[in-house]
């Protein structure tokens, strides 16, 4: 299981460690580079998250299940492989809903592992279920991202990582990064790094007059646009959060109460 830059076929379902869809080869892992393990059973989502991470200068290994993630980390067997020293996983980002092992279950296993419990774990989900989010945060997830994941979300993670990166062996290291640390930022306030007019304001109308970055379509990941009902299966799903102008819907962060504005 090469983690040092071998080029894998992009279509290989179980693991990709590539330089991008352009087929560029990943150079060997460098101690100064952030290495992210991405876990998602959807191939489309893996491609997208991999690209999002690479564009923010992360090295990425993408796997298609919790089991493969554990396998990659070496958690599922007790062999202290020499590879562990090279792995240097700085962040694990995982989908919540996966067959076999959910992201939550993966999170728990990671937190139970002495080698990897300090690695920050971020959960992604297409469903904004408060109880789910809280459960993950309580179990030690660093953050929770609502799908579809956007560049601004990943940039925020990147900022958060680089200010204080913990390696699996517990050593902290600082990376050369001048972005704002968002470790203790309040909920629903994203770091002001993304000046792209990317995240749509929370408006239900499709022709917002907001000049900054109005979407043409209603916000897709949170509240229900007028034409169809909200897809949720839980009473605790939030419908609409406060219309912070340039930010995506609910991004819940650790250490804060789960209430929405």
């Amino acid at each position, binding site marked *: 299981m090469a983690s040092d830059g071998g080029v894998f076929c992009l279509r290989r379902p179980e693991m990709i460690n590539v330089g991008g869809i352009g087929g560029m080869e990943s150079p060997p892992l460098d101690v100064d580079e952030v290495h992210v393990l991405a876990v998602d059973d*959807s191939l*489309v989502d893996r491609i997208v998250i991999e690209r999002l991470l690479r*564009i923010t200068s992360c090295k990425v290994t993408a796997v298609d299940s919790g089991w493969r993630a554990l396998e990659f980390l070496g958690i599922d067997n007790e062999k202290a492989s020499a590879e562990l020293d090279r792995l240097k996983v700085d962040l694990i980002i995982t989908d919540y809903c996966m067959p076999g092992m959910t992201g939550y279950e993966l999170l728990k296993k990671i937190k139970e592992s002495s080698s990897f419990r300090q690695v920050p774990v971020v959960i992604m989900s297409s469903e904004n279920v408060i109880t789910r989010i809280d459960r993950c945060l309580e179990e030690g997830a660093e953050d929770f991202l609502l799908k579809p994941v956007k*560049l601004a979300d990943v940039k925020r993670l990147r900022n958060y990582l680089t200010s204080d990166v913990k390696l699996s062996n517990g050593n902290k290291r600082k990376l050369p990064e001048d972005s704002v640390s968002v470790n203790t930022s309040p909920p629903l306030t994203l770091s002001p790094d993304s000046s*792209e007019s990317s995240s749509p304001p929370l408006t239900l109308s499709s022709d917002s007059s907001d000049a900054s970055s*109005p979407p043409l379509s209603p916000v897709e*990941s949170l509240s229900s646009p007028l034409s169809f009902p909200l897809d949720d299966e839980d009473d605790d799903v939030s419908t609409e959060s406060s219309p912070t102008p340039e930010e995506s819907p609910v991004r819940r962060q650790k250490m804060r109460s789960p209430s929405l504005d």
Partner: protein
Amino acid sequence: MNNVVAQLQRQFHDYLVSLYQQGFLDNQFSELRKLQDDGTPDFVAEVVSLFFEDCSKLINTMSRSLERPENVDFKQVDSGVHQLKGSSSSVGARRVKNVCISFKECCDVQNREGCIRCLQQVDYEYKMLKTKLQDLFNLEQQILQAGGTIPQVDIN
């Protein structure tokens, strides 16, 4: 020559805007476009191509599950819808995603007829989008071949 490029760029711009305005695409598609650069000029095309393959496979599987009225595997259908909804959301395929929402509802109440209708609709929508995007990518190619650059398109 410049005129040709400008014309093509205009066409591209207008066409893409129309796709947003008509609800084929949503903001997530523009997010994907941001991830494309000179080094990865085919990124969006490749991602949506994977998405369409996904659609085809999932629709086939769900169709089989819905085939016999006396023996519908709604769990399987639900799983397919969930996956389809997820990937359509990730690429900004708005209409496809919307159908999935209705589809899920039919599945939840085990409405086979409704599911079949939704299945047909999702099939229609993804194929329609595929055609539209193919036209868009063709325009992109024409622009590049004429020596131009792909315009940024702001949705507003």
